[in-house]
Structures are given as C-alpha cells and as structure tokens.
C-alpha cells in the first residue's frame, strides 16, 4: 500500500497526463449522436451570437459582391416569371400554381460561421426552430448546393457542409440522366467526387452535374458543379471529379429548403423496406 502511494506521488505528473489525455480521447471517440446534438445546440447558441457580431462587420466589406450576385439572381428569377413568356403560343396553356399543393418552401438565412479548412466542416446559420428550420433540410446558395441542416437551436442552426467527409448526395449528369453518389474526399475545397457511373455512359468534361432529387432532401435539378476530370476505376465505373459551382470561401446568404412531401415519402420508404 505504501509502495503504491509512493509510486503515485513519484509519477503523479505522468499519471495525471495519462488520465486527462485518456479523457480527451474518450471525448474524441464517443460519437454519441444524442448528446452531441444537445451539446452543440447549446454551444451554437453561444458561439452563434458571438459570430453574428463579427459577421455584421464583415457584411459591409462584401456588399459590392453581394449586390452583383443579387442582381444576377433577380435577372434569373425574372426569366422564370410568367410574364417573360409569350402567352400566345398556340400549344401551351398557363396553369395557375394555386391549384397545386405547395411542395417546397424557401427560408433565407445568413451564414454567421463557416469553416473550409477542416475535414468535417460545418456552417452556422442565423435561423433556427423559431423560423421553421428543422434537421435534414437542404441548404442551397444562389450558385449551387451548400449542405444539409444537422442540428438546430432556437435561433441558430448547424449545417453539414458539402465540404464534410460525412456529406453525401445523389447527383445526376444533366445531359444523360445517369446518377450516382457524390461526396467530398477531404482534399481540395473546390472539387467533389461522383462515383458509380457505368463505363458505357458518355461522359464529357464540362457537363453540368445537378441534384437527382432522390433521398428527398434536395429538390431535383439544383446545380452542384461541372465535370472537371474523369477516369475509369477497375474498368467498370467512372470516378468523376466535379468542380463545385459554389465558392465555399465566400458564403453569405443561403436558402434553407423545407420539403412538404418529405414526411410522406420517408414513411413510404420505411414501410417499403420493412
């Protein structure tokens, strides 16, 4: 017993180090989703408030670029207005949208914190449950997809960025309709990888990649990027390098998409797989 005590006194520094380091490692390895979400929604509401202050200052510095982007987006939206199309075309009839149920609802949010330099990057937005944001909602920017909402507090939400090794989305080559999973390999912040495209498909550099709409998170047809490079892997499937159309280094305003049909399609999927 005395020897044990003497041992502890003599090596207390080493023992303390081992205890604390083991505890840190324990923190690192326990990926318990429930506690994680609880914990993050608390820390986000604190750090989110702090980041808002900093972001407010940064806002002024990027006004010029933002204005240009808003103007471009306005132009794009004008092009889609009914008044932009001729109504005299003999073979087309305009059907008012009010007869169709609303499918997607867009919530504008501001990025208050964003990282691109880690392997698992997250974005914090200034909208939370009070604005109707819930986990699993899609987030897009004016140029392309941005991520999926992961956890939410009252006024802030945390978004799993495309630049996160846990992120995956079903993507489609616009020109021929073939689709496969797209993810980020943690390397270059400008490129993502699309796999599982069979070898007989004609793939061309410069082709547009869009969301396929499968999985129910992202609506169909939102841009992701363009094909930068591709090669055959094992002779059967293409591995395609996609240049992301969003510049994750200068995100500012984004849209969170609420899918009204998601619960219904999800429960259908669950019932089918049971």
């Amino acid at each position: 017993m005395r020897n044990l005590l003497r041992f502890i006194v003599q090596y207390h520094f080493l023992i303390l180090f081992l205890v604390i380091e083991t505890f840190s490692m324990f923190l690192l390895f326990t990926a318990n989703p429930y506690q994680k979400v609880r914990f993050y929604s608390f820390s986000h509401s604190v750090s989110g408030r702090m980041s808002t202050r900093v972001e407010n200052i940064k806002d002024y510095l990027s006004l010029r670029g933002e204005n240009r982007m808003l103007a471009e987006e306005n132009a794009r939206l004008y092009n889609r207005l009914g008044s932009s199309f001729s109504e005299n075309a003999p073979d087309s009839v305009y059907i008012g949208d009010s007869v169709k149920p609303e499918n997607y609802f867009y919530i504008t949010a501001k990025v208050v914190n964003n990282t691109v330099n880690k392997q698992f990057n997250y974005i914090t937005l200034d909208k939370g449950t009070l604005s109707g944001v819930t986990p699993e909602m899609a987030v897009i920017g004016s140029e392309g997809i941005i991520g999926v909402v992961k956890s939410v507090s009252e006024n802030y939400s945390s978004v799993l960025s495309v630049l996160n090794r846990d992120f995956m989305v079903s993507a489609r080559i616009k020109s021929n309709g073939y689709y496969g999973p797209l993810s980020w390999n943690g390397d270059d912040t400008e490129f993502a990888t699309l796999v599982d495209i069979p070898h007989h498909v004609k793939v061309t550099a410069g082709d547009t990649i869009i969301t396929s709409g499968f999985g129910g998170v992202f609506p169909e047809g939102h841009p992701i990027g363009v094909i930068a490079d591709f090669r055959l892997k094992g002779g059967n499937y293409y591995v395609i390098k996609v240049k992301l159309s969003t510049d994750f280094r200068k995100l500012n305003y984004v849209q969170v998409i609420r899918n009204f049909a998601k619960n219904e399609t999800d429960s259908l999927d669950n019932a089918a797989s049971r």
Partner: protein
Amino acid sequence: MIKSLIKYLFLFVILLLAQLLVFNNIELSGYINPYIYVLFILLLPFDVPRVVLMLSAFLLGLSIDLFMGTPGVHSSATVLMAFARPAVLTIFSPREGYQTGTQPRMITFGLEWFIKYTVLLVLIHHFTLFYLEVFTLQHFFSTFLRAISSSVLTSVILIFSQYFIFRK
C-alpha cells in the same frame, strides 16, 4: 500571487477570443491555420505546479473545442504539449539553469532560446492536432504539409508577438 493569477486569467481569455474571432478566420490556401492560443502554455512561469499546468492546458483546449465543435481534438493536443513542456525546458536550459524568479520570456533568455522553445512545442501541438483531426494516415503527406506550414506561421506570429507584449 493574486496579481499574477489575474494576469494569467486575463491572458487566457484574450488568447481564447483572439483565436476564435480573428485567427480562426485566417486560412491561406486551405493549408495554413495558425493556432496561437498555445502561447498561454508557453508563457506560464517556470515554477507553476505541474498539476496546474496540466489542468489549465486541458481547460484551454476544451474551451477551444467547445466553440469549434471538435470535442477532444484541441484538448488532447494541448495536454500533450503541456506534458512535454518540462522536458523541453530541461533540454534548452542554460548552463547555470533557470534562476528563481525568472519567467520564460524572450526578453530574459534571448531570441534564439525563445525560437527553439516555441518551435519545438508548437510542432508537438500542431502535429498531434492535425493528425487527430484527420484521424487517418490516408492523406499522410498533405496533413504533414498542413502541420508543418501551420506550425511555421504560428511560431512566427508568437515570436513576433513577443515584441509587443511582455517587453518589460
């Protein structure tokens, strides 16, 4: 005693805020991220009890982790660095040893000593940090490059900062 305690508490908070609000926003080409909060561990007095050294390192790393959403990554790296500090101090000790009452400052022991002391501890911290964060040896060389380049930037910032604070 109380005075120096308050001084170090103040330093702790300032470094935490500087890291979270300023230096986390610096990343050059996705490779270089300085983590300057380790200055706190570097500047603790020679005679700080090792238990205090260890616990303050853990608290510092944990606070950074809380705000960056990476539980365990920064605290592991910072605790390892604090564990290495006494050994590093012994390696670089001047011939007559550290005199009582002195503190690990550039002004006392000179630029060369401070560079050696800072660079070695920052390297230990950054390598642990970057490899724990990636948690795979798959991208060994790109992680290696990120750790090295970030260590250089952090060390330069820390050494440069010594010309502005703790000059007396």
